[in-house]
């Protein structure tokens, strides 16, 4: 039951992009086309899930026993950077088309605050290993939900007769804000359950 609540919570209620405003950079940068958005969200979900697990293990098996829990942020960034580099190599080998499409945003997952955010939130909320994994994957799926829905909207915006001053990025920002307001509707979804 608790795992179910965590995953629903991570996807809808505390959606990383639309409720916590983490990971905005790839959310706006790679959401122009549905294909690349899907590729990006798969990569981010994978990195977030893996980062959650490895960061949890580093925190509880290395940092806390040695009494250097305050090095958490730096250690996590190190882990995430290594992971992203690894994912980049794998994607470059297995799917050059996706690698081309993601472009600069792939290495930018390194500095994606959603990834670092999920790792630190796992520790802060005292999740155990399984819960951290679920929260990480759930957060990634939430990111995927947001960016894929948004990519669909932006593909339509391309063809829409927008005012010239709002063409391109400005109208995307407006659309993103409306998205965020819509997701506020999930707030309080579980208030009766928890």
């Amino acid at each position, binding site marked *: 039951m608790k795992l179910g609540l965590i995953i629903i919570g991570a996807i809808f209620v505390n959606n990383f992009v639309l409720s916590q405003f983490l990971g905005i950079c790839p959310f706006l940068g790679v959401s122009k086309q549905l294909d690349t958005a899907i590729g990006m969200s798969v990569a981010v979900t994978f990195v977030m899930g893996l980062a959650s697990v490895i960061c949890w293990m*580093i925190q509880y098996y*290395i*940092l806390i026993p*040695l*009494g*250097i829990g305050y*090095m958490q942020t*730096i*250690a996590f960034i*190190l*882990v995430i950077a*290594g992971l992203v*580099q*690894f994912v980049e*190599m*794998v994607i*470059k*080998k297995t799917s*050059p088309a996706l690698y081309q499409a993601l472009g600069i945003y792939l290495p930018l997952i390194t500095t994606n605050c959603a990834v670092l955010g999920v790792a630190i939130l796992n520790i802060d909320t005292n999740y155990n290993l399984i819960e951290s994994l679920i929260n990480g994957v759930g957060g990634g799926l939430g990111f995927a939900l947001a960016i894929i829905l948004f990519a669909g909207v932006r593909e339509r915006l391309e063809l829409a007769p927008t005012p010239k001053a709002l063409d391109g990025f400005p109208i995307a920002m407006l659309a993103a804000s409306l998205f965020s307001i819509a997701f506020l509707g999930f707030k309080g979804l579980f208030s009766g359950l928890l």
Partner: protein
Amino acid sequence: MFDSIGLPVIVLGGIAVFFGIVLAYASKKFAVEVDPRVTEIRDILPGANCGGCGYAGCDALAEAIVKGEVTVSFCPVGGDDVTAKIADIMGIEADNTERQVARVICCGDKDNAVEKYEYQGIEDCKAAEMHAGGAKGCRFGCTGLGTCVRECPFDAIHIVNGVAVVDEDKCTACKKCIAACPKGIIELVPVSKEVRVLCKNQDKGKSVAEVCKVGCIACQKCVKACKFDAIKVENNVAKIDYSKCVNCMMCAEVCPTKTIYANFAKRKKAFIDEDKCIGCTICLKHCNFTAIEGELKAKHKVLDDKCVGCGQCALKCPKNAIEMK
């Protein structure tokens, strides 16, 4: 002391080394072979990532060249030198496309063109275009408010006395000014072609003369003067077919309104090397201006005052005895 400084250093260093080893192994395992020609071509390209070719940068263009999407001479900035080197890497002959430059087809500057009202709006051709096609009486002429100047990434176009003029040394034929000009009067022309008709006005001669002293009045004098059938009047304006034009500049000489411009200082003359000349009279027969004289078997002579430097004799001479200088 050790606990507060040494321990974090060792632990984080250890983690870093561990990830380093994993990544080093992965980079071997997942190594992707890149076509070596891509890197070679990228090194030769100017590397300014100016985007003049339409690709995201020199890297993207190098890939497109290797894939065969575009020709080896696609970089508008690199010039012949770069093209030749790239052709060498790709193992093909460079197509000898001559360097092109943009030219503004209008010479109606402030002294010659009539203005129909005083424009005091935004200093931009596109804005002026909305007010009855700009202030200039001629609706085909250069508005002269410098939209193309602001567009040019190479500082190669300037407004001189109310008309845009291209600096041909700096122009890279990136076509940005062509896209920006609301009048559509900028064209790409091979750089060696010295003669140009600087008017696009399609109105009848009388209406043209009312709005511009140097507009083409379609008098047909240039058509008659051209011995190479390279100039035609279409839609009341003369137009040069550059595949036929040989830079003899006769059209510019006869043009009554001085609409056709040619830099007479660059006009060449034929010189016959008397050591090589065998007196075959071939050059003499091909000269449209009777500027060469001489009997069969005798050394020929060029009449300097008649020679216009069209270069036809030099092309036809079987002994390569004629030089254009």
